[in-house]
């Protein structure tokens, strides 16, 4: 339990620092008034304009000192309010904008990662089990092709083949369509091409990582041992070799997912998906700081959360990582200690009670 609390405190501290730095940097570098008011913002000689400027400053708290503004923002942020946009109308509020855009990016990201991991694992296992054979060499060349092919090029190719030529997949993304369903009017299907664009590149990168780790694992004595037990080739690969080889993949996966939470600009733009990626670019160009800040906070949180999940996953995969945490919390204990161990322990506890009574 102490560990979890420490981790949570760390997350809080990190978010505070990141938000302070971002907040300060953006307020020092730009002039948000121009985006709120337009050309009037520069018209400081005209008393009427000055009046409007003063009013706007007051409305957006721009007349307050930086620490005060930060404190105000932080207070709102904690209650889930990301503040008001720095635009002419200030509408929609940042929170609403994020609520609208974040799910789209999240759906795309999850689909892309599922495709990437789903392809990478069998691909890497096949390649590693025949290391340096023709199959492996072909797959290496293919992987490098996908890794080095830029997103936009792959997007164009996939779009042309599957949408225009074959007409298997829809060519428009409609943000108002329902997500779950299997027709062209569901976003699940509309997301396939963009997810594939992101997923193929990811799969190739993951395949390179996992293949190397698998080749190392396959040279271990326990693989020979498993084979000598008569375990089938397939089982040796998937049951004995895969699990201890997943560490690097999980590490990179956690980083990649967190990174992609911030949106995939190129793919979102190409397939016209109004997600976080496009939102952040618009916001940066218009110096719409509250939006940028909100997305920065989301990405930072994602990094912390996914890296924590990765740490937990290491323990699930490899029992040797667990030992330090055994005494942590009852929840973790039931997860990590086998049932029999627990029962045995309870028995011992019962016995001690009996003896003492």
């Amino acid at each position, binding site marked *: 339990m102490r560990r979890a609390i420490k981790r949570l405190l760390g997350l809080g501290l990190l978010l505070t620092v990141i938000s302070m730095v971002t907040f300060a940097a953006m307020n020092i570098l730009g002039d948000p008034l121009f985006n709120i008011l337009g050309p009037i913002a520069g018209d400081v000689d005209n008393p009427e304009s000055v009046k409007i400027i003063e009013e706007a400053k007051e409305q957006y708290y721009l007349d307050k000192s930086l620490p005060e503004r930060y404190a105000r923002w932080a207070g709102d942020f904690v209650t889930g309010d990301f503040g008001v946009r720095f635009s002419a109308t200030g509408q929609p509020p940042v929170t609403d904008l994020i609520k609208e855009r974040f799910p789209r990016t999240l759906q795309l990201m999850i689909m892309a990662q599922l495709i990437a991991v789903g392809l990478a694992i069998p691909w890497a296992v096949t390649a590693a089990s025949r290391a340096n*054979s023709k199959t492996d060499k072909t797959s290496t060349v293919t992987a490098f092709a996908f890794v080095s092919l830029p997103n936009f090029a792959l997007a164009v190719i996939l779009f042309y083949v599957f949408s225009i030529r074959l007409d298997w997949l829809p060519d428009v993304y409609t943000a108002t369509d329902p997500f779950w369903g299997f027709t062209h009017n569901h976003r699940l299907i509309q997301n396939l091409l963009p997810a594939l664009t992101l997923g193929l590149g990811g799969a190739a990168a993951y395949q390179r990582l996992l293949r190397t780790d698998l080749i190392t694992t396959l040279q*271990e*004595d*326990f693989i*020979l*041992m*498993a*084979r*000598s*037990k*008569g*375990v089938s080739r397939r089982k040796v690969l998937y049951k*004995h070799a895969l*699990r*201890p080889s997943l560490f690097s993949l999980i590490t990179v996966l956690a980083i990649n997912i967190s990174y992609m939470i911030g949106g995939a600009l190129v793919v979102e733009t190409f397939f016209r998906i109004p997600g976080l990626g496009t939102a952040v670019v618009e916001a940066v160009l218009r110096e719409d700081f509250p939006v940028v800040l909100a997305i920065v906070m989301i990405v930072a949180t994602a990094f912390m959360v996914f890296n924590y999940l990765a740490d937990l996953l290491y323990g699930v*995969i*490899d*029992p*040797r990582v667990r030992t330090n945490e055994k005494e942590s919390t009852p929840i973790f204990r039931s997860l990590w200690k*086998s049932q*029999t*161990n627990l029962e*045995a322990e309870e028995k011992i506890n019962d016995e001690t009670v009996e003896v003492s009574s």
Partner: protein
Amino acid sequence: MTYPTDEEHPLLVLEDYRIGFNTERGLAKAVDGVSLTLKRGQTLGIVGESGSGKTVLNRGVIGLLAARNTVESGSAKFEGEELVGENRQAFWGTKMAMIFQDPMTSLNPVMKVGNQVMEPLRQHQKLSKSEAKKRVADIFTLVGIPEPIKRLDQYPHELSGGMRQRVMISIALAIEPDLLIADEPTTSLDVTVQKYILDLLTRVQKEQGMSMVLITHDLGVARGRADEILVMYGGRVMEHAPTEDLFEKMSHPYTSALFSSIPHLHHKKHTRLTPIPGTPPDIVEPPTGCRFAPRCTYAQEICLLESPPMTQEGNHRYACFFPIGIQQGQEALTTNQQRGHTASGLQIQKKAEAI
């Protein structure tokens, strides 16, 4: 037709068995024409220093070498069935089992040990989970693992080296194999555990009536546990005899050199051991003649030119022109001592004595 299981029909027969690996320099002849016979219920000790080909020989027979770059020839018959050129997967986990050298690395670190022992039982004998669990608990008791039920759910890292080796032995024994290959089963264990493990292996081997190949670099380990001992060097058989015969009448200079290089209980304090000079031969381009000649104190000119044929004396066979214990051998040694070096130019030092 079932294969007869009486003692007359040997379990394993190798004839001129060879294994080579394709390397950039050429074919590395790791096993170069080995012939042997292993009877049912018997233990064969294979002894030799590192690189003598003993491990490759056994992995080759069981079929665990990577197929690519490996060239196998000659004949290896298991229960009368030819193995060379055939896939031996059907024997794995059913009739053949192997115990590896290092229990620290030979168990899957992320699998519970119980599952690792149960795996071949569930797969080959189609036991249910509870049946398999019961069997494994019985075997754990047999090999001396305390609290067997609790151990089932532990991971290898939670066990000591000796316990892990017992788990490995359980894996091999659980399937009740006909042939058990123990590849240096005690090398990475400390001495107190070594004896226990070796005694355990021999006891269970006798009880279950299986044949065992005990690979070791330590003649002392093979002594008293193996019925026969085969001494290998550079991929070839140097000497092969029933254990008692071998120690009574060591014929090959290599066997003798190997024996002198390990400490013995009857040695006086501070006895200097006699190391074998030089290093094992290059197996890609092996020396012509006897493989051991360059390091042999008995070597004469003919040893460098011709491969010594196998001399058979009853159950005892050896490949040497100048074996110990007969006149030619003694003369060869005297000649070399007089000229101060052997035919290959190896300097002969005065025999080391107690200091």
